[in-house]
């Protein structure tokens, strides 16, 4: 087994690299690579991905394994599983990390099962134990508890990391590019994409955003969600929602924050007309600063936020948004 640490690159639908990849590279370098004494490597899998290597070097990748194949297009799970399992078997890295994105959650556990490795999901801290095994911390029990988990060692140790948990810092290196010798056959791909719809949005993605503005059922209509979008856009924030608002049809499922939606941990989380259920907090309770605007003074959220106004969102938001806008344009 080598002492190398790998980070599998998370790509967006537009082919650019997700921030979580740079965060993982930075944290791996700080916490794992120096102590293990191996190299920091990135693994770039996809179709038409060549050319992204230098960007990975910017964040410290000393080596980039590339598998560029048409069969890896559109986040093909089976293609990724084959390519990554093969690369791991051939090179036996000590640790393999990836972002805990929708796609990461899909292919990563399957790779672990294929190569007989343990895997920890959604780590918010990574480190090494005394005997140089991977040790991580993660939320469990509706994010009410934090587990510390340690790997047994002896096989490659795998973990996904939660976006926005670590800071990405540049540490320029000129990576050696290695073309991965993995054979992919069309017959290996059983799940076929027959439609792929991308939603064009200028807003940042929820899991990556520094700021999030979310709305609850109290918004009362799809139309009224314009208040959420307006404030979000002024703040450069992502827009989120509670399950109740999504179920009521006010906004799409991909905006849902909570136990059954996305987990976010931005610097600033503004909750508009959100009561603050256990399930919602499971998805945003680790936010650094939580702000609540709600007309019910008894809403649970007022027991677990930093700042708030007891008031009707339709009264408060227009002047609030106006003032924030003035402030932002001042710089």
């Amino acid at each position: 087994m080598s002492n190398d640490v790998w980070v599998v690159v998370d790509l967006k639908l537009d082919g650019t690299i997700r921030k979580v990849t740079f965060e993982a590279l930075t944290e791996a370098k700080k916490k794992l690579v120096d102590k293990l004494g191996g190299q920091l490597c990135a693994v770039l899998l996809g179709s038409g991905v060549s050319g992204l290597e230098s960007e990975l070097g910017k964040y410290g990748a000393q080596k980039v394994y590339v598998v560029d194949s048409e069969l890896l297009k559109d986040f093909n799970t089976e293609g990724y599983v084959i390519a990554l399992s093969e690369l791991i078997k051939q090179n036996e890295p000590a640790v393999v990390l990836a972002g805990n994105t929708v796609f990461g959650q899909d292919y990563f556990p399957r790779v672990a099962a294929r190569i007989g490795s343990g895997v920890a999901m959604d780590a918010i801290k990574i480190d090494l134990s005394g005997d140089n095994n991977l040790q991580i911390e993660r939320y469990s029990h509706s994010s009410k508890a934090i587990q510390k988990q340690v790997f047994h060692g002896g096989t490659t140790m795998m973990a996904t990391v939660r976006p926005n948990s670590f800071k990405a810092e540049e540490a320029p290196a000129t990576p050696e590019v290695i073309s991965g010798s993995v054979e992919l056959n069309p017959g290996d791909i059983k799940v076929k994409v027959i439609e792929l719809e991308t939603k064009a949005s200028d807003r940042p993605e929820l899991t990556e955003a520094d700021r999030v503005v979310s709305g609850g059922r109290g918004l009362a209509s799809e139309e009224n969600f314009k208040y959420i979008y307006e404030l979000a856009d002024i703040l450069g924030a992502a827009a989120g929602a509670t399950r109740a608002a999504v179920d009521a049809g006010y906004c799409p499922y991909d905006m849902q924050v909570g136990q059954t939606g996305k987990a976010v941990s931005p610097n600033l989380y503004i909750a508009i007309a959100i009561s603050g259920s256990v399930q919602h907090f499971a998805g945003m309770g680790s936010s650094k600063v939580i702000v609540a605007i709600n007309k019910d003074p008894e809403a649970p959220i007022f027991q677990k936020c930093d700042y708030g106004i007891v008031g009707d969102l339709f009264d408060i938001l227009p002047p609030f948004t106006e003032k924030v806008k003035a402030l932002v344009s001042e710089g």
Partner: protein
Amino acid sequence: MKILVIVSQTQDTEAKIQVSASGDSIDTGDMKWIMNPYDEFAVEEAIQTKEKHGGEVVIVAIGPGRVIDTIRQALAMGADSAVHINGEGFAETDSYAIGKLIAGEIKKLGEFDLIFTGMKIIDEESGQVGVQVAEELGIPHVSLVSKVVEINTDAKKAVCQKEIDGGHVVVEVPLPCLITCPDAMNEPRYASLPGIMKAKKKPLTEVGIDDINYDELGFGKDAVSKEGARVKTISIEVPQIERKLKIIKGDDEPMVKGEEVAKAAEELIKLLREDAKVI
């Protein structure tokens, strides 16, 4: 069609949790045990599929004796039979071993068309087992399926929609396959009283921990223990995040109204700017 559903029992998330004396698990003493909410969607989807295409629904569950309540709930909802891998200590092992054990029992059930299971269990929140069972069985999986668009029993394929970051995708997958269920998928039915009565008479196979052929699974019995786990939880804590609780209220009643509104908005901005330094 033969449809399998992997079902777990879990602690109620509404519950207040505390760490056990050993410091590496959650105290389950007074806890209410429920069917993992995501698995309820899986059971519902399986029953709806059966209602449309005919066939049978088989529940597969792992865990100690108390899991029988969850199995009965699934049978009462409309599943036809169940397999219970019954033993203590599974909670201490890892997903890798659980996946292998479940896949091992599924292999004994003969041919099947579909497996549904929840996207994750709400206590561990890991979401590995379903995908790993598919790997062990050598069948394709589609995770986080928001909608099963079509099942074609003649062509032996399913068409599923799933939500991904920044869009959605529709995939076609040959049967047999495994599908993991998020919560937007359907509305799980309640067990009816006749359903509950009938559930008691439905076939239930119990598999004891000593009935398992570990050689066939390719790992020793010691893997099904805390010591044998590839990843183990060494400590758990319930963090208390101190929040500032600076709440602006109205002068006469809790709600800020009328002329107070502009002042409150101003004050909140000042707090965010000067106290929190986030805007």
